[in-house]
């Protein structure tokens, strides 16, 4: 799977702390029942003014950064809402990895569940990567997902990623399929769990019948 071993390309620095998923994917783009069309919504209020015109000074709108593949962000990147649309949108926009000092927890899981690589590195390394990304001539970053290293013009840094998450990025694991191999164990667990705690069994079904839901 050498194809997914290396993620490399243009990097862009987003110097915003606590960049929440409301900003990454605003509400008006959440009205679908599929995953399509989300590239248009990525960082919409940053990329476009109130009249819908591109803001020329925003990094992702600059011609030199049109082929951005990697974002270097501030601390707590992707905090807030659980909306996975933020991850789908970034991927549709062409982003293959986000590097930041830390990530919102739900975003972190969402990213890896979709094969979007998330790399945590200390603040000083992030600052150096951001400076490199600002330099159009030398703003390329190369990430080796096998060796777990990040390289740029001035940085050659190792990072950590759990073996499970590494496989998810390299091999695109079917997590549900894997968990279904535990189906017999889950059923046995549930039977014992409900025998001990009968008040937990069918809790929504019992409540739904009492409240007469789904009448229409």
């Amino acid at each position, binding site marked *: 799977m050498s194809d997914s071993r290396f993620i490399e390309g243009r990097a862009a620095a987003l110097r*915003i*702390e606590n960049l929440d998923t409301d900003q990454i994917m605003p509400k008006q783009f959440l009205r679908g029942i599929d995953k399509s069309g989300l590239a248009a919504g990525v960082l919409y209020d940053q990329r476009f003014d109130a009249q819908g015109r591109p803001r020329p000074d925003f990094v992702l709108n600059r011609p030199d950064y049109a082929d951005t593949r990697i974002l270097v962000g501030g601390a707590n990147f992707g905090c807030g809402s659980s909306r996975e649309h933020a991850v789908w949108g970034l991927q549709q926009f062409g982003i293959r990895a986000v590097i930041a000092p830390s990530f*919102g927890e739900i975003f972190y899981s969402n990213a890896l*569940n979709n094969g979007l690589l998330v790399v945590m590195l200390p603040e000083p390394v992030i600052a150096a990567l951001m400076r490199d990304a600002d330099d159009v001539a030398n703003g390329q970053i190369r990430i080796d997902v096998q060796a777990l290293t990040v390289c740029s013009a001035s940085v050659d840094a190792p990072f950590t990623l*759990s073996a499970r998450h590494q496989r998810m990025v390299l091999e695109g694991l079917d997590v549900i399929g894997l968990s279904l191999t535990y*189906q017999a164990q889950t059923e046995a667990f549930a039977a014992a*769990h409900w025998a001990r705690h009968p*008040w937990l069994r069918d809790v929504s079904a019992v*409540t739904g019948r009492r409240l007469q839901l789904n009448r229409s």
Partner: protein
Amino acid sequence: MSARTLYRKLVESHTVATLDAQNVLLFCDLHLMNEYTSPQAFAALHDRGRSVPVPGQNVAVVSHIIPTHPVPSTLRVIADPASALQATNLAANCRRHGIPLFDTRDALQGIEHVVAPEHGMVRPGMVILCGDSHTTTYGALGALGFGIGTSEVAHVLATQTLVYRLAQDMRIRVDGMLPAGTTAKDLILSIIGRLGAQGARGFVVEFCGTAIEALSIEARFTLCNMAVEAGARGALIAPGQAAIDYVLARAPDITGEVRDAALAHWRTLASDAEAHFDVEHRFDATEVVPHVTWGTSPDQVLAVTAQVPRPDAQQDEAQRRSTEQALRYTRLVPGGAIEGTPVQHVFIGSCTNGRIEDLRAAAAVVRGRHVAEGVRAMVVPGSGAVKAQAEAEGLAALFTDAGFEWRQPGCSMCLAMNDDVLADGVRCASTTNRNFEGRQGRGAITHLMSPAMAAAAAVTGRITDVRLLELNHV
């Protein structure tokens, strides 16, 4: 067995299998869904020919996109075609799999985190998942709840489990009594202000102490709901008698021997005396004052009596930059007083503060007063049940007589996914949970505060210290 925290007990009692050093396969007792984070999960299931093996542990609510216009429940219409499709799609998915649904025109429809506990579905000791970050709310009843993404929604639907990365243990002890004029909202805002937006990232937080024990269950919902704004992966409060009474009053199916067994189990749901917490914090409730956010992150918060921070007084460059960015958006003067800032809109509602006690607290401020000139104020009850209760208590009439709009339930202006959207530059006193840029509308400015503080802003037209207004309790 060594001493364990309540969090560890809940995880261990729901572990189907240990997958590796960091991850377990966690059993889910209750899975809640809404119309906008579940459609792609159902689609993924259907694409692979997968089924929902345990539909009776799942429930769905139309909550985020639903308009809140004041029409009778049976006449509610979702005018936006895309949003309407989300609602009909959810109904079709629930029908297909036999999942109970609080649908658009159900009189009990509301916000998922208000609806689930008020009908007794949330019970101590449960693991509860939902494609919504504010699922931490259920810690108020001693249930481990947390938000998940849509891929994980599909995983829960297909397996009734989640691949779960273990968190660390944090304890926040709050002793003393909250002073008059302050609430759980002020307490959690002050905690988030001190910890920061990622101060609890990686942790499940257990709240304890005399101040926590004195909180009503609804106040505990507010507290645990916003723990996620400090980055917490979950929040917990050991369920004492108040939590047990709350649940039993709403869960008539728990009777006889089952009730005795439940009571015996629920009494074991506490951290052992010697349990180790990775991090501990202490707060003094007696020092809490009414809090208001000034920036674009919930940790950018201050006492209503304090001054807006100056970027040049910040310690490091990142803080200076985020203070500047926030103030540019919120259009406040560095070093100026937050109190007295004029507002054009007031929103009372949300899964944080849309319950009956919240409405009573707001009503106590509004009684005998009127919404100030130039202010649009709305109350959006958290659910149909809350709405009916408030109407029965006369609160609805009180609000409408005072010039408030009294609307149908839903998430509404908390995230403005429906048509309750603010215009550019409108400043809103809001009882919600996030003051993010553009959250309530592009360019709209959100000041998070308690229901009483929001009511005070409504009647004075500016951010006001509610302690200075005489209360007229209902």
